[in-house]
Protein backbone atom coordinates (compact mmCIF):
# COMPACT_ATOMS: atom_id res chain seq x y z
CA UNK A 1 0.00 0.00 0.00
CA UNK A 2 1.56 3.23 -1.12
CA UNK A 3 0.77 6.01 1.37
CA UNK A 4 2.63 8.53 -0.70
CA UNK A 5 0.45 7.71 -3.72
CA UNK A 6 -2.71 8.38 -1.69
CA UNK A 7 -1.30 11.59 -0.33
CA UNK A 8 -0.52 12.75 -3.85
CA UNK A 9 -3.88 11.74 -5.24
CA UNK A 10 -6.10 13.13 -2.45
CA UNK A 11 -5.74 16.80 -3.41
CA UNK A 12 -6.32 15.96 -7.06
CA UNK A 13 -9.55 14.12 -6.24
CA UNK A 14 -10.65 17.03 -4.06
CA UNK A 15 -9.84 19.39 -6.93
CA UNK A 16 -12.05 17.43 -9.32
CA UNK A 17 -14.98 17.37 -6.90
CA UNK A 18 -14.74 21.06 -6.05
CA UNK A 19 -14.36 21.96 -9.73
CA UNK A 20 -17.61 20.09 -10.40
CA UNK A 21 -19.29 22.58 -8.09
CA UNK A 22 -19.46 20.60 -4.86
CA UNK A 23 -19.30 22.19 -1.43
CA UNK A 24 -15.71 22.22 -0.18
CA UNK A 25 -16.28 20.72 3.27
CA UNK A 26 -18.58 18.00 1.96
CA UNK A 27 -16.07 17.19 -0.79
CA UNK A 28 -13.25 16.92 1.76
CA UNK A 29 -15.31 14.46 3.80
CA UNK A 30 -16.09 12.42 0.69
CA UNK A 31 -12.38 12.27 -0.23
CA UNK A 32 -11.56 11.06 3.27
CA UNK A 33 -14.17 8.32 2.96
CA UNK A 34 -12.83 7.33 -0.45
CA UNK A 35 -9.29 7.11 0.95
CA UNK A 36 -10.54 4.76 3.66
CA UNK A 37 -12.08 2.57 0.96
CA UNK A 38 -8.81 2.62 -0.97
CA UNK A 39 -6.84 1.50 2.06
CA UNK A 40 -9.35 -1.31 2.52
CA UNK A 41 -9.53 -2.58 -1.09
CA UNK A 42 -6.33 -1.73 -2.93
CA UNK A 43 -4.08 -4.30 -1.25
CA UNK A 44 -6.35 -7.02 -2.79
CA UNK A 45 -6.96 -5.44 -6.15
CA UNK A 46 -5.00 -2.39 -7.23
CA UNK A 47 -7.04 -0.44 -9.80
CA UNK A 48 -5.39 0.30 -13.15
CA UNK A 49 -6.23 4.00 -12.87
CA UNK A 50 -6.08 4.89 -9.12
CA UNK A 51 -7.10 8.53 -9.68
CA UNK A 52 -10.21 7.63 -11.67
CA UNK A 53 -11.08 4.99 -9.05
CA UNK A 54 -10.84 7.53 -6.22
CA UNK A 55 -12.85 10.15 -8.10
CA UNK A 56 -15.62 7.63 -8.77
CA UNK A 57 -15.75 6.39 -5.18
CA UNK A 58 -15.55 9.91 -3.70
CA UNK A 59 -18.32 11.03 -6.05
CA UNK A 60 -20.49 8.17 -4.86
CA UNK A 61 -19.74 9.00 -1.20
CA UNK A 62 -20.78 12.56 -1.86
CA UNK A 63 -24.11 11.45 -3.31
CA UNK A 64 -24.62 9.09 -0.34
CA UNK A 65 -23.91 11.88 2.11
CA UNK A 66 -26.33 14.21 0.36
CA UNK A 67 -29.03 11.53 0.36
CA UNK A 68 -28.62 10.73 4.04
CA UNK A 69 -28.56 14.42 4.84
CA UNK A 70 -31.84 14.89 2.97
CA UNK A 71 -33.46 11.95 4.71
CA UNK A 72 -32.14 13.13 8.06
CA UNK A 73 -33.78 16.45 7.42
CA UNK A 74 -37.02 14.70 6.49
CA UNK A 75 -36.85 12.64 9.67
CA UNK A 76 -36.22 15.71 11.77
CA UNK A 77 -39.10 17.56 10.19
CA UNK A 78 -41.39 14.61 10.88
CA UNK A 79 -40.11 14.35 14.43
CA UNK A 80 -40.61 18.06 14.96
CA UNK A 81 -44.26 17.77 13.90
CA UNK A 82 -44.99 14.97 16.31
CA UNK A 83 -46.58 15.92 19.62
CA UNK A 84 -44.05 16.14 22.47
CA UNK A 85 -43.85 13.09 24.73
CA UNK A 86 -45.96 13.31 27.87
CA UNK A 87 -44.23 14.18 31.13
CA UNK A 88 -45.11 11.06 33.08
CA UNK A 89 -42.63 8.73 31.47
CA UNK A 90 -39.52 10.79 32.05
CA UNK A 91 -40.46 11.99 35.54
CA UNK A 92 -37.83 10.06 37.42
CA UNK A 93 -35.13 10.12 34.77
CA UNK A 94 -34.90 13.87 34.42
CA UNK A 95 -34.62 14.52 38.11
CA UNK A 96 -32.31 11.56 38.64
CA UNK A 97 -29.94 12.64 35.89
CA UNK A 98 -30.00 16.26 37.00
CA UNK A 99 -29.38 15.28 40.63
CA UNK A 100 -26.43 13.16 39.60
CA UNK A 101 -24.96 16.04 37.59
CA UNK A 102 -25.53 18.55 40.38
CA UNK A 103 -23.99 16.42 43.12
CA UNK A 104 -22.68 18.49 46.08
CA UNK A 105 -19.29 16.77 45.78
CA UNK A 106 -18.73 18.67 42.52
CA UNK A 107 -17.50 22.24 42.32
CA UNK A 108 -20.19 24.52 40.90
CA UNK A 109 -18.20 24.91 37.67
CA UNK A 110 -17.92 21.16 37.16
CA UNK A 111 -21.58 20.61 38.00
CA UNK A 112 -22.58 23.18 35.41
CA UNK A 113 -20.37 21.60 32.73
CA UNK A 114 -21.57 18.09 33.48
CA UNK A 115 -25.22 19.17 33.49
CA UNK A 116 -24.88 20.85 30.12
CA UNK A 117 -23.16 17.78 28.69
CA UNK A 118 -25.33 15.03 30.15
CA UNK A 119 -28.73 16.66 30.45
CA UNK A 120 -28.45 19.56 28.02
CA UNK A 121 -26.93 17.33 25.36
CA UNK A 122 -24.44 20.02 24.31
CA UNK A 123 -21.18 18.89 22.76
CA UNK A 124 -17.96 19.35 24.69
CA UNK A 125 -16.89 21.82 22.00
CA UNK A 126 -20.01 23.93 22.54
CA UNK A 127 -19.56 23.99 26.31
CA UNK A 128 -15.88 24.85 25.91
CA UNK A 129 -16.86 27.68 23.61
CA UNK A 130 -19.46 28.98 26.05
CA UNK A 131 -16.85 29.11 28.81
CA UNK A 132 -14.09 30.38 26.54
CA UNK A 133 -11.69 27.55 27.34
CA UNK A 134 -9.99 25.10 24.97
CA UNK A 135 -11.95 21.95 24.18
CA UNK A 136 -9.41 19.51 25.74
CA UNK A 137 -9.59 21.52 28.98
CA UNK A 138 -13.36 21.19 29.08
CA UNK A 139 -13.16 17.48 28.16
CA UNK A 140 -10.84 16.94 31.14
CA UNK A 141 -13.10 18.90 33.46
CA UNK A 142 -16.13 16.86 32.42
CA UNK A 143 -14.44 13.47 32.71
CA UNK A 144 -13.07 14.42 36.13
CA UNK A 145 -16.61 15.37 37.17
CA UNK A 146 -17.93 12.04 35.86
CA UNK A 147 -15.33 10.17 37.90
CA UNK A 148 -16.29 12.15 41.01
CA UNK A 149 -19.96 11.18 40.82
CA UNK A 150 -19.55 7.65 39.53
CA UNK A 151 -21.30 5.37 42.00
CA UNK A 152 -22.65 8.30 44.01
CA UNK A 153 -26.20 7.81 45.17
CA UNK A 154 -28.14 11.00 44.90
CA UNK A 155 -31.77 10.51 44.07
CA UNK A 156 -33.93 11.66 46.96
CA UNK A 157 -36.46 14.46 46.92
CA UNK A 158 -34.39 16.87 49.01
CA UNK A 159 -31.75 16.96 46.31
CA UNK A 160 -33.79 19.26 44.14
CA UNK A 161 -32.28 22.22 46.04
CA UNK A 162 -28.82 21.48 44.66
CA UNK A 163 -30.24 21.05 41.17
CA UNK A 164 -31.99 24.42 41.31
CA UNK A 165 -28.79 26.11 42.44
CA UNK A 166 -26.87 24.68 39.49
CA UNK A 167 -29.59 25.61 37.00
CA UNK A 168 -29.56 29.15 38.37
CA UNK A 169 -25.78 29.20 37.91
CA UNK A 170 -26.14 28.09 34.31
CA UNK A 171 -28.66 30.88 33.78
CA UNK A 172 -26.36 33.47 35.32
CA UNK A 173 -23.38 32.50 33.19
CA UNK A 174 -25.47 33.94 30.40
CA UNK A 175 -22.86 33.87 27.68
CA UNK A 176 -24.19 34.56 24.25
CA UNK A 177 -22.79 33.05 21.14
CA UNK A 178 -23.58 29.80 19.46
CA UNK A 179 -24.67 28.51 22.85
CA UNK A 180 -26.94 30.72 24.89
CA UNK A 181 -26.67 29.42 28.43
CA UNK A 182 -29.62 31.47 29.66
CA UNK A 183 -31.88 29.85 27.06
CA UNK A 184 -30.39 26.47 27.90
CA UNK A 185 -31.07 26.96 31.63
CA UNK A 186 -34.68 27.88 30.90
CA UNK A 187 -35.07 24.81 28.71
CA UNK A 188 -33.67 22.51 31.42
CA UNK A 189 -35.74 24.12 34.17
CA UNK A 190 -38.87 23.68 32.04
CA UNK A 191 -37.98 20.02 31.71
CA UNK A 192 -37.52 19.73 35.46
CA UNK A 193 -40.78 21.60 36.16
CA UNK A 194 -42.63 19.10 33.97
CA UNK A 195 -41.05 16.22 35.88
CA UNK A 196 -41.46 17.40 39.46
CA UNK A 197 -44.05 18.75 41.80
CA UNK A 198 -42.27 21.52 43.68
CA UNK A 199 -43.35 25.18 43.67
CA UNK A 200 -39.71 26.22 44.00
CA UNK A 201 -38.97 24.72 40.57
CA UNK A 202 -41.79 26.82 39.12
CA UNK A 203 -40.48 29.77 41.13
CA UNK A 204 -37.03 29.42 39.54
CA UNK A 205 -38.52 29.05 36.06
CA UNK A 206 -40.61 32.18 36.65
CA UNK A 207 -37.53 34.03 37.93
CA UNK A 208 -35.53 33.11 34.82
CA UNK A 209 -38.34 34.11 32.46
CA UNK A 210 -38.86 37.43 34.24
CA UNK A 211 -35.15 38.29 34.08
CA UNK A 212 -34.71 37.00 30.55
CA UNK A 213 -37.64 39.11 29.34
CA UNK A 214 -35.59 42.26 29.93
CA UNK A 215 -32.66 41.11 27.85
CA UNK A 216 -33.48 42.93 24.59
CA UNK A 217 -33.19 46.24 26.47
CA UNK A 218 -30.25 45.42 28.72
CA UNK A 219 -27.49 46.28 26.27
CA UNK A 220 -26.99 48.88 23.57
CA UNK A 221 -26.23 47.54 20.07
CA UNK A 222 -22.52 48.04 20.79
CA UNK A 223 -22.77 46.00 24.00
CA UNK A 224 -22.80 48.74 26.63
CA UNK A 225 -24.79 48.11 29.82
CA UNK A 226 -28.13 49.91 30.24
CA UNK A 227 -29.25 50.22 33.87
CA UNK A 228 -32.73 48.93 34.75
CA UNK A 229 -34.09 52.42 35.29
CA UNK A 230 -32.90 53.58 31.84
CA UNK A 231 -34.16 50.61 29.83
CA UNK A 232 -36.69 51.02 27.05
CA UNK A 233 -39.50 48.98 28.59
CA UNK A 234 -41.34 48.63 25.30
CA UNK A 235 -38.50 46.36 24.16
CA UNK A 236 -39.01 43.89 26.99
CA UNK A 237 -40.41 40.53 26.01
CA UNK A 238 -43.94 40.80 27.32
CA UNK A 239 -45.02 37.23 26.55
CA UNK A 240 -42.23 35.93 28.81
CA UNK A 241 -43.29 38.35 31.54
CA UNK A 242 -46.89 37.14 31.32
CA UNK A 243 -45.77 33.50 31.46
CA UNK A 244 -43.47 34.20 34.41
CA UNK A 245 -46.19 36.01 36.36
CA UNK A 246 -48.70 33.19 35.74
CA UNK A 247 -46.20 30.55 36.87
CA UNK A 248 -45.33 32.58 39.95
CA UNK A 249 -48.94 33.14 40.97
CA UNK A 250 -49.73 29.44 40.66
CA UNK A 251 -46.62 28.61 42.72
CA UNK A 252 -47.42 31.20 45.43
CA UNK A 253 -50.98 29.88 45.67
CA UNK A 254 -49.59 26.56 46.86
CA UNK A 255 -48.32 28.25 50.01
CA UNK A 256 -44.88 26.65 50.13
CA UNK A 257 -42.76 29.76 49.87
CA UNK A 258 -39.08 29.49 48.98
CA UNK A 259 -36.26 31.81 47.98
CA UNK A 260 -36.75 31.46 44.23
CA UNK A 261 -40.43 32.32 44.44
CA UNK A 262 -39.50 35.38 46.49
CA UNK A 263 -36.84 36.48 44.00
CA UNK A 264 -39.32 35.93 41.18
CA UNK A 265 -41.85 38.11 43.02
CA UNK A 266 -39.29 40.92 43.16
CA UNK A 267 -38.47 40.52 39.48
CA UNK A 268 -42.20 40.55 38.68
CA UNK A 269 -42.65 43.86 40.52
CA UNK A 270 -39.88 45.41 38.38
CA UNK A 271 -41.30 43.95 35.18
CA UNK A 272 -44.83 45.11 36.01
CA UNK A 273 -43.95 48.78 36.51
CA UNK A 274 -44.83 50.85 33.41
CA UNK A 275 -41.93 53.20 34.23
CA UNK A 276 -38.99 52.92 36.63
CA UNK A 277 -40.49 55.71 38.76
CA UNK A 278 -43.70 53.72 39.19
CA UNK A 279 -41.91 50.69 40.67
CA UNK A 280 -43.71 49.50 43.80
CA UNK A 281 -40.64 49.79 46.04
CA UNK A 282 -42.47 49.27 49.37
CA UNK A 283 -43.61 45.87 48.12
CA UNK A 284 -40.13 45.11 46.77
CA UNK A 285 -38.73 45.86 50.22
CA UNK A 286 -41.29 43.58 51.88
CA UNK A 287 -40.21 40.73 49.62
CA UNK A 288 -36.54 41.42 50.42
CA UNK A 289 -37.36 41.21 54.13
CA UNK A 290 -39.01 37.87 53.36
CA UNK A 291 -35.93 36.77 51.39
CA UNK A 292 -33.58 37.61 54.25
CA UNK A 293 -35.83 35.63 56.61
CA UNK A 294 -35.91 32.61 54.29
CA UNK A 295 -32.37 32.57 52.98
CA UNK A 296 -30.17 35.12 54.66
CA UNK A 297 -27.11 36.03 52.62
CA UNK A 298 -24.91 39.11 52.23
CA UNK A 299 -26.04 39.40 48.61
CA UNK A 300 -29.72 39.43 49.62
CA UNK A 301 -28.95 42.12 52.22
CA UNK A 302 -27.01 44.17 49.68
CA UNK A 303 -29.99 44.19 47.33
CA UNK A 304 -32.27 44.94 50.24
CA UNK A 305 -30.19 48.05 50.97
CA UNK A 306 -31.07 49.37 47.50
CA UNK A 307 -34.76 48.87 48.22
CA UNK A 308 -34.39 50.54 51.64
CA UNK A 309 -32.79 53.48 49.84
CA UNK A 310 -35.79 53.78 47.54
CA UNK A 311 -38.41 53.47 50.29
CA UNK A 312 -36.85 55.32 53.25
CA UNK A 313 -34.33 57.50 51.41
CA UNK A 314 -30.63 57.17 50.56
CA UNK A 315 -29.50 57.84 54.18
CA UNK A 316 -31.40 54.80 55.41
CA UNK A 317 -30.04 52.78 52.48
CA UNK A 318 -26.48 53.79 53.36
CA UNK A 319 -27.08 52.85 57.00
CA UNK A 320 -28.21 49.38 55.89
CA UNK A 321 -25.16 49.17 53.63
CA UNK A 322 -22.75 50.03 56.44
CA UNK A 323 -23.74 46.83 58.24
CA UNK A 324 -22.31 44.83 55.35
CA UNK A 325 -18.75 43.93 54.40
CA UNK A 326 -17.41 46.50 51.89
CA UNK A 327 -15.50 43.62 50.27
CA UNK A 328 -18.75 42.21 48.85
CA UNK A 329 -19.03 42.24 45.07
CA UNK A 330 -21.06 45.29 43.97
CA UNK A 331 -20.91 46.90 47.41
CA UNK A 332 -19.17 49.91 45.88
CA UNK A 333 -21.68 50.14 43.05
CA UNK A 334 -24.58 50.23 45.53
CA UNK A 335 -22.76 52.77 47.70
CA UNK A 336 -22.14 54.93 44.62
CA UNK A 337 -25.82 54.80 43.65
CA UNK A 338 -27.02 55.74 47.15
CA UNK A 339 -24.48 58.55 47.60
CA UNK A 340 -25.51 59.98 44.26
CA UNK A 341 -29.14 59.96 45.30
CA UNK A 342 -28.10 61.70 48.52
CA UNK A 343 -26.52 64.45 46.39
CA UNK A 344 -22.94 63.54 47.34
CA UNK A 345 -21.42 63.58 43.87
CA UNK A 346 -17.76 63.32 44.93
CA UNK A 347 -18.33 60.32 47.17
CA UNK A 348 -20.50 58.71 44.54
CA UNK A 349 -17.83 59.22 41.87
CA UNK A 350 -15.14 57.71 44.09
CA UNK A 351 -17.30 54.62 44.74
CA UNK A 352 -18.13 54.25 41.04
CA UNK A 353 -14.40 54.36 40.25
CA UNK A 354 -13.69 51.75 42.93
CA UNK A 355 -16.53 49.58 41.60
CA UNK A 356 -15.12 49.89 38.07
CA UNK A 357 -11.70 48.72 39.22
CA UNK A 358 -13.32 45.63 40.74
CA UNK A 359 -15.72 44.83 37.88
CA UNK A 360 -15.21 41.39 36.41
CA UNK A 361 -16.32 42.14 32.88
CA UNK A 362 -15.45 44.84 30.40
CA UNK A 363 -19.00 46.04 29.69
CA UNK A 364 -19.70 46.58 33.38
CA UNK A 365 -16.35 48.28 33.92
CA UNK A 366 -16.99 50.65 31.02
CA UNK A 367 -20.46 51.43 32.39
CA UNK A 368 -19.17 52.18 35.90
CA UNK A 369 -16.22 54.25 34.62
CA UNK A 370 -18.67 56.28 32.60
CA UNK A 371 -20.83 56.90 35.69
CA UNK A 372 -17.75 58.09 37.60
CA UNK A 373 -16.75 60.36 34.71
CA UNK A 374 -20.29 61.78 34.53
CA UNK A 375 -20.19 62.74 38.24
CA UNK A 376 -16.63 64.02 38.12
CA UNK A 377 -17.36 66.64 35.49
CA UNK A 378 -18.33 70.22 36.39
CA UNK A 379 -16.12 70.19 39.46
Amino acid at each position, binding site marked *: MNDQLLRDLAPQVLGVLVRRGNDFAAAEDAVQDALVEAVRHWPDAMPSDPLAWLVTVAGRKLVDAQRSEASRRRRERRDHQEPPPGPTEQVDDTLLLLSRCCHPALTPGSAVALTLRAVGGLTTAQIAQAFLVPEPTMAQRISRAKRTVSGARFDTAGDVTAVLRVLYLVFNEGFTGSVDLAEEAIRLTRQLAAATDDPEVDGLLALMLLHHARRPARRTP*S*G*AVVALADQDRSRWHHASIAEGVDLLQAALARDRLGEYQVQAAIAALHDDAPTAAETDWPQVLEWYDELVRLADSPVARLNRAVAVGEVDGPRAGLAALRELDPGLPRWDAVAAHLHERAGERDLA*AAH*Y*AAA*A*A*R*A*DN*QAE*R*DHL*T*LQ*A*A*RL*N*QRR
Partner: protein
Amino acid sequence: MAKYLLLKHYRSDHAIAAEDIPPMDQWQPDEVEAHIAFMHRLNAELEASGEFVDAQGLSPEGTFVRYDGDGRPPVTDGPFAETKDLIAGWWIVDVESRERAHEIAAYGSSAPGPGGRPIREWIEVRPFMGPPPSVSE
Protein backbone atom coordinates in the same frame (compact mmCIF):
# COMPACT_ATOMS: atom_id res chain seq x y z
CA MET B 1 1.89 34.76 9.47
CA ALA B 2 3.20 35.02 12.97
CA LYS B 3 1.48 35.65 16.24
CA TYR B 4 2.31 38.61 18.45
CA LEU B 5 1.19 39.53 21.93
CA LEU B 6 0.43 43.23 22.30
CA LEU B 7 0.56 43.95 26.03
CA LYS B 8 -1.00 47.09 27.47
CA HIS B 9 1.18 48.26 30.35
CA TYR B 10 0.23 50.87 32.88
CA ARG B 11 3.66 51.59 34.20
CA SER B 12 3.66 53.71 37.29
CA ASP B 13 7.43 53.86 37.75
CA HIS B 14 7.95 55.88 34.62
CA ALA B 15 5.77 58.27 32.73
CA ILE B 16 2.90 56.68 30.83
CA ALA B 17 3.12 59.35 28.19
CA ALA B 18 4.64 62.73 27.53
CA GLU B 19 1.77 64.43 29.30
CA ASP B 20 0.09 63.34 32.48
CA ILE B 21 -3.19 61.57 31.73
CA PRO B 22 -5.63 61.43 34.66
CA PRO B 23 -7.46 58.15 35.42
CA MET B 24 -10.37 57.45 33.12
CA ASP B 25 -13.07 58.26 35.67
CA GLN B 26 -11.78 61.86 35.67
CA TRP B 27 -12.46 62.29 31.95
CA GLN B 28 -15.56 63.82 30.39
CA PRO B 29 -18.24 61.14 29.76
CA ASP B 30 -18.08 61.69 25.99
CA GLU B 31 -14.30 61.22 26.14
CA VAL B 32 -14.78 57.88 27.91
CA GLU B 33 -17.33 56.85 25.30
CA ALA B 34 -15.00 57.85 22.45
CA HIS B 35 -12.20 55.78 23.99
CA ILE B 36 -14.41 52.70 24.36
CA ALA B 37 -15.74 53.14 20.82
CA PHE B 38 -12.16 53.31 19.53
CA MET B 39 -11.29 50.02 21.21
CA HIS B 40 -14.40 48.30 19.80
CA ARG B 41 -13.56 49.65 16.34
CA LEU B 42 -9.95 48.46 16.55
CA ASN B 43 -11.06 44.93 17.45
CA ALA B 44 -13.65 44.94 14.66
CA GLU B 45 -11.03 46.09 12.15
CA LEU B 46 -8.62 43.35 13.21
CA GLU B 47 -11.39 40.77 12.92
CA ALA B 48 -12.29 42.06 9.46
CA SER B 49 -8.67 41.83 8.30
CA GLY B 50 -8.37 38.29 9.67
CA GLU B 51 -5.60 39.32 12.06
CA PHE B 52 -7.56 39.09 15.32
CA VAL B 53 -6.81 36.16 17.62
CA ASP B 54 -7.79 37.37 21.08
CA ALA B 55 -8.22 40.51 23.17
CA GLN B 56 -8.81 40.54 26.91
CA GLY B 57 -8.89 43.10 29.67
CA LEU B 58 -7.40 42.33 33.06
CA SER B 59 -8.54 43.46 36.47
CA PRO B 60 -6.00 45.76 38.10
CA GLU B 61 -5.95 43.55 41.20
CA GLY B 62 -2.98 41.24 41.04
CA THR B 63 -0.77 39.33 43.43
CA PHE B 64 2.76 38.06 42.94
CA VAL B 65 3.17 34.56 44.34
CA ARG B 66 6.37 32.58 44.86
CA TYR B 67 7.22 29.13 46.19
CA ASP B 68 9.17 29.60 49.42
CA GLY B 69 10.50 26.15 50.17
CA ASP B 70 9.08 22.90 51.49
CA GLY B 71 6.42 23.15 54.15
CA ARG B 72 6.31 26.92 54.05
CA PRO B 73 3.44 29.02 52.77
CA PRO B 74 4.04 30.64 49.40
CA VAL B 75 5.32 34.21 49.47
CA THR B 76 2.94 36.81 48.16
CA ASP B 77 3.42 40.53 47.78
CA GLY B 78 1.25 43.15 49.41
CA PRO B 79 -1.19 45.45 47.71
CA PHE B 80 1.49 47.89 46.54
CA ALA B 81 -0.29 48.89 43.38
CA GLU B 82 1.78 52.01 42.95
CA THR B 83 5.04 50.11 42.47
CA LYS B 84 3.65 47.31 40.35
CA ASP B 85 3.86 47.09 36.63
CA LEU B 86 0.14 46.81 35.95
CA ILE B 87 -0.94 44.98 32.83
CA ALA B 88 -4.32 46.20 31.75
CA GLY B 89 -4.96 43.71 28.99
CA TRP B 90 -3.75 42.38 25.69
CA TRP B 91 -4.40 41.70 22.07
CA ILE B 92 -3.09 38.66 20.27
CA VAL B 93 -2.78 39.23 16.55
CA ASP B 94 -1.72 36.94 13.74
CA VAL B 95 0.02 39.16 11.20
CA GLU B 96 2.31 39.04 8.18
CA SER B 97 5.20 40.93 9.69
CA ARG B 98 6.70 42.48 12.78
CA GLU B 99 6.13 45.86 11.15
CA ARG B 100 2.40 45.18 10.97
CA ALA B 101 2.34 44.18 14.68
CA HIS B 102 4.11 47.46 15.51
CA GLU B 103 1.64 49.34 13.37
CA ILE B 104 -1.34 47.84 15.21
CA ALA B 105 0.27 48.55 18.60
CA ALA B 106 0.94 52.13 17.64
CA TYR B 107 -2.62 52.51 16.43
CA GLY B 108 -3.90 51.03 19.71
CA SER B 109 -1.69 53.46 21.59
CA SER B 110 -3.31 56.34 19.72
CA ALA B 111 -6.67 55.67 21.46
CA PRO B 112 -8.27 59.00 22.32
CA GLY B 113 -8.20 60.40 25.86
CA PRO B 114 -9.06 63.77 27.38
CA GLY B 115 -9.77 66.37 24.74
CA GLY B 116 -9.69 63.66 22.10
CA ARG B 117 -5.87 63.62 22.22
CA PRO B 118 -4.13 60.25 21.92
CA ILE B 119 -3.25 58.86 25.34
CA ARG B 120 -0.02 57.30 24.03
CA GLU B 121 0.13 54.43 26.50
CA TRP B 122 3.00 51.94 26.20
CA ILE B 123 2.15 48.74 24.38
CA GLU B 124 4.74 45.98 24.42
CA VAL B 125 4.99 43.82 21.30
CA ARG B 126 6.23 40.26 21.89
CA PRO B 127 6.49 37.58 19.23
CA PHE B 128 5.11 34.13 20.11
CA MET B 129 7.57 31.26 19.97
CA GLY B 130 6.81 29.17 16.91
CA PRO B 131 6.43 25.39 16.91
CA PRO B 132 9.67 23.39 16.70
CA PRO B 133 10.63 22.43 13.15
CA SER B 134 9.08 19.11 12.22
CA VAL B 135 12.19 18.01 10.38
CA SER B 136 15.62 18.73 11.76
CA GLU B 137 18.45 18.02 9.37
